């Protein structure tokens, strides 16, 4: 029994080796670059006084963690859907736009000049409610009608932003308000950006839910073998639908962060192309895109890696024309390093080294 748990722990940690290594390599790369140009400013964290007169922390590392917030939250939801359904929801960006539109519409109903905690809470709850309806639509197509997730979510992927447009019309509402800044930037008196806390809270809630209940086991079972799950009394449809509900909550929260961060809602660009980064974060985090076992921490790490890469390239002032090419090269290296084929080769190599050294000892 003890042996069993140990081996499980070992396996769990091995999943995080690749993302941790990637993060380490990016940090070392920036260190070397800093030493080469004689300026380690990339790692410095300073304080500034923002335009509202509050002290805030500033620096690349803070920016990376802060910028990754929306992505990390969506990546958590994406991980759950991936684990349970063995596929990805590509409509998260478009559904996020709908969620943002609902959020701002409610704020508008209360009056944009007169934003209060109440209007924000009502707005967020309404946004979450509407978003869950849309993600459940996806979930029903996937869980009940057994449509491939990518095809099922293609529908909202293509029409979601039009729905958001129908909600807000041609308006690009501006939200210049202290409370909005407190959510999207910093709360007066707390120098750490608020979105970072929201990621921590979301991770804690999901982490606790999966720690204290059997949900992790159920989700993984459904992801690995639906038939076996059903025979053991687990309802695969319910588990899949639940993963979409949780994704909906994640998307709403991320959408609110971005709206507050940019002080505006634009149905066309809100969370633009976030689905691709979210899927990438799940993959870099060592999760199988085919479903089954998952680690939320891996996906969060994956998000930080993506943003660290973006931030590094921006910091190096890479020409905008070629920034995507550099990004692609680094990502392909990370993904190949984490691929099963490479992992197998490496473990086989280790075994060989191990065995030959043992043989050498025995021979002596």
């Amino acid at each position, binding site marked *: 029994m003890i042996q069993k748990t140990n081996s499980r722990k070992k396996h769990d940690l091995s999943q995080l080796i690749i993302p941790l290594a990637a993060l380490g390599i990016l940090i070392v790369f920036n260190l070397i670059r800093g030493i080469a140009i004689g300026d380690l400013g990339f790692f410095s964290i300073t304080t*500034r006084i923002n*335009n509202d007169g509050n002290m805030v922390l500033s620096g690349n590392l803070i920016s990376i963690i802060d910028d990754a917030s929306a992505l990390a939250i969506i990546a958590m939801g994406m991980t759950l859907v991936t684990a349970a359904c063995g596929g990805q929801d590509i409509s998260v960006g478009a559904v996020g736009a709908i969620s943002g539109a609902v959020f701002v519409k409610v704020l508008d109903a209360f009056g944009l000049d007169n934003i209060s905690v109440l209007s924000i809470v009502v707005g967020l709850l309404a946004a979450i409610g509407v978003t869950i309806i849309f993600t459940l639509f996806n979930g029903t197509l996937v869980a009940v009608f057994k449509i491939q997730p990518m095809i099922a979510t293609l529908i909202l992927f293509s029409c979601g932003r039009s729905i958001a447009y129908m909600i807000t019309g041609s308006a690009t509402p501006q939200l210049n308000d202290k409370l909005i800044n407190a959510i999207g930037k910093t709360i007066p008196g707390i120098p750490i950006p608020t979105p970072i806390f929201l990621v921590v809270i979301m991770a804690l809630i999901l982490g606790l839910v999966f720690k204290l209940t059997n949900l992790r086991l159920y989700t993984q079972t459904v992801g690995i073998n639906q038939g076996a799950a059903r025979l053991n009394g687990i309802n695969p449809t319910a588990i899949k639908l639940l993963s979409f509900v949780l994704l909906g909550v994640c998307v709403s929260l991320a959408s609110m962060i971005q709206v507050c961060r940019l002080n505006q809602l634009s149905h066309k660009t809100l969370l633009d192309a976030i689905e691709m980064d979210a899927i990438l974060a799940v993959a870099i985090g060592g999760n199988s895109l085919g479903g089954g076992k998952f680690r939320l921490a891996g996906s969060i790490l994956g998000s930080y890696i993506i943003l660290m890469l973006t931030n590094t390239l921006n910091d190096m002032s890479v020409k905008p024309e070629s920034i995507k090419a550099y990004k692609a090269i680094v990502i392909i290296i990370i993904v190949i390093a984490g691929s099963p084929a490479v992992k197998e080769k490496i473990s086989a190599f280790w075994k060989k080294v191990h065995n030959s050294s043992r043989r050498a000892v025995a021979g002596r």
Partner: protein
Amino acid sequence: MKKILALVLALVMVLCAASALADGIKVGIINLDPAESGYREANVKDMTDTFTAENGYEATFVTAPTADKQLDAARGFIADGVKYILVSAADADGWDEVLQEAKDAGIGVFLFDRMVNADPSLYTAAVVSDMDKEGETAVAWLESLGLEEYKILHIKGQLGSAAQLGRSGALDKKCEAEANWTIVREGTGGDSWDPEEARKIAQAAIDANEDFNIIYAENDGMAQGAVAALDKAGITHGVDGKVIVMGFDCNKYALRELLAGNWNYDGQCSPFQAKLIDEMIKKLEAGEAIEGLNELNQIINNEVGFDAKTITQEDIDTYGLGE
């Protein structure tokens, strides 16, 4: 059944009589989907507001997002015997045949906003924006400030788009020519002109302690994104601030930021072509010739830039796009 048929016939006759009575200039207007952008929405509204019965027109409007639907609409208008066709083409290619048919039928064709790849003799005139001029106007405004040093954070739009090339071109040329004009950093908002990307670019520049005093963002959304990064870092901007903020497109919200002194400049990309076409049609109807066309039969739509110091609420109401 017979009753219904009779009713329909009666209705048709009434409609025919009505249209004969209306006696306006028959025009067919083919535009793109208004949901496409704030620009297009304003453009469609401009057309419907100008070509009205009170203004002496009998106009039919079609908004179609694709080339084949637009071509069908154009053929329909030719069959209906309209006097003029106005087109903002979804696709520059494939118009030769239809334009020739229209010409043979004696129908005048006006292109607006978007050009087509066809011989200039096939259309009466084209009203278009000059993207190069938009950039030049903005750079000339910047030069007129007479700053000692121009340290620019340049945020480009969708790379390769006409708007990006025009707006970047003038700035790049100026920075090459003048020693005190430097581009500190440049980045792009990508294909969707994403404000979030613009914010990250500005954030990276701030984190690296780059010294810049101008943000040249190629549309309003990206300017707003960059400003969010400035606000967070406590860098003042606008009329009394450290950093000069420049945007393009003249959305209402951007012009309001100008009026409040938070931004400094906004360049117009005018969606208002209806009035120019209206004037040309009236001239043709009066038997006069259209003047001022270039070798491509184009008229360049006059576009302005707004300065935070001189903008008025009236400008916002007249020129602002969206809400």
